[in-house]
Structure formats: structure tokens, C-alpha cells
């Protein structure tokens, strides 16, 4: 499956099917990952059930230092 994640086209294995799967594929034990899926900001509770399909666009953001 091919996804556009944070502006990069990325190939993912077949077992990846939800937003949570994608997060786990890239990051282990991230406390805060904020996700936008195909232009829609989704809440954390829906990460495990939100399905991703070939060609989807994802944005992963988090908090960084700032003033």
C-alpha cells in the first residue's frame, strides 16, 4: 500500500490497515501523535478503527518546543 505521509510517498506492508497500525510502523510508544487523515483531523480514540487505503494522505504532527 502506498500512502502520502507528511509530504512523502511511503510504501507500507500489507498488514497495515488502520491509523494506529501506521503509527506503530513508524513510532514506538509515542505519547502524543496528532493525525490528519485525508484532510480531516481525527481524535485519538478513533486511531485504532480508522482504516487507511492505498493513496490516502496522512499528516502526523506533535508538540515541539515553542514560545
Amino acid at each position, binding site marked *: 500500500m502506498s500512502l502520502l*505521509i*507528511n*509530504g*512523502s510517498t*511511503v510504501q507500507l506492508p500489507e498488514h497495515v490497515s488502520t491509523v494506529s497500525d501506521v503509527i506503530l510502523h*513508524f*513510532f*514506538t510508544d*509515542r*505519547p*502524543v*501523535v*496528532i*493525525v*490528519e487523515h485525508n484532510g480531516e*483531523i*481525527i*481524535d*485519538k480514540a478513533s486511531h485504532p478503527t480508522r482504516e487507511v487505503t492505498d493513496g490516502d494522505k496522512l*499528516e*502526523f*504532527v*506533535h*508538540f*515541539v*518546543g*515553542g*514560545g
Partner: protein
Amino acid sequence: MLTIGEKSFQSHLLLGTGKYPNVDMQKQAVAVSETNILTFSVRRMDIYEPSQPNLLEKIDIQNYDLLPNTAGAYTAKEAVRTAKLANASGLCDMIKVEVIGDKKTLLPDPVETLKATEELLKEGFTVLPYTSDDVVLARKLEELGAHAIMPGASPIGSGQGIINPLNLSFIIEQSNVPIIVDAGIGSPKDAVYAMELGADGILLNTAVSGAADPVKMAEAMKLAVQTGRLGYEAGRIPIKRCATASSPQEGISV
């Protein structure tokens, strides 16, 4: 106490979390500042770097209220999106609206700041717009319903301190919501000065994170904000042109 929207805070100092030499120093600086509110930015994660440091891992966020900013936005639309992303963390409902209108000075775009503030208030956010020291703009932001107004003391990160105390004092006098002086604070004297003018709070970052000893400066800023507030509440003496003796003029032994 500093009251913003529904919440009250013991500390009048809001601390930014950017540009510390390292995360341990940042953690210590945050602790000694005794701040209740921390600011953050929202940025893309690096999907190819799973071990990237996340500030929230080092700081026990249960002890703080988080004030994410919309830094990086040049339009109201971008600021609103960033605010919604921050809110989707489930960790905060406050937002510092920061819509930059000029890359050289980082001064805010007044029109887009107003638009973003209006939109986010409709969405139910607790909105704290970063603004210039424009008196009329501050009034208009308050009229929209902004929960606090955050005029800059001088350009972001410049350390120039309070360059227009007159405008700041006008804003403070006219406002019924907290005025938090944001941006440009360079040293503790600037924080004292702003608080003595009657500001309700100070938001600073570089003055601490860029100091030679950020932890010591965090403590100095804590004390400066407290000192300025006490001085404001105590009411300073009028400035007179000529001397007035402190000691009795009678009974001098000759």
C-alpha cells in the same frame, strides 16, 4: 491569581519551551520558574526518525496547562488548522493565536489575527491572540471575546524589552481581560517593568532559553514577575521634580 477564561493560575509567568540547550536544562528551567502554563508549537513528526525527542516525555504535563501556539501560520486559515490539530491531542483547549505578517520583524498580521480569533472563539477555544501593541486592535480583539490579549513588548526573540510602555499602559487600562505581555522580553528588568505597568502576566521564552544559565534566569524571571506584580499592587510614589527629605527637618542637633 491570573484568571484566563474558566481557569485561574497562581503564577503570572507563562514560559515557552523552544530553543533550550538540552531537554534536561529545559526541564529544570520549567520547574524553577514555577510557571503553570507552558507554550508549545505544532510541527510535523519525522517519520524516519522514531527516536526524536518529544518534550512532553520529559515534562510531567499533568502539572501544567498547555498553551500551544499557531506559529508558522501566515493566514487565519492556517492558524485555525494548527489550533484544531493541537486540540486533537486532547491535552488542551487554550490556543495562542500567532499569525505572522512580516518575516523580517515577525510582527503579527492584524487582519488575519482578528479573523483567526473570531473563528476559534466560535469553535469554543480559549483564545489568547498574540498582537502588536496597537491599542485599537487590542480593544477589537477583546470585543470579539478573546480570553486574554498578548501584546508584544518588542519583536519576537529580540530581547529589546518594552519599547512602547505608553501603548502597553493604554491597553492595560482599557482592558477587562488579562493582558499578557508576550515577546521581546530580554532581562528581568523588562518583566518587572511590564508587571509594574499593570500587566497581568508575561510570556517569554528566549530570555530564559537563550540565557547563559537558563535555569538561573528562569528563577530570576519568576522573581521579577512577582516583584513587578507586588510593586504594581503596592502603588508606587509619584515622580517629583525636586527632592523631598526622608529625615525630619526639625530637631537637628547643632
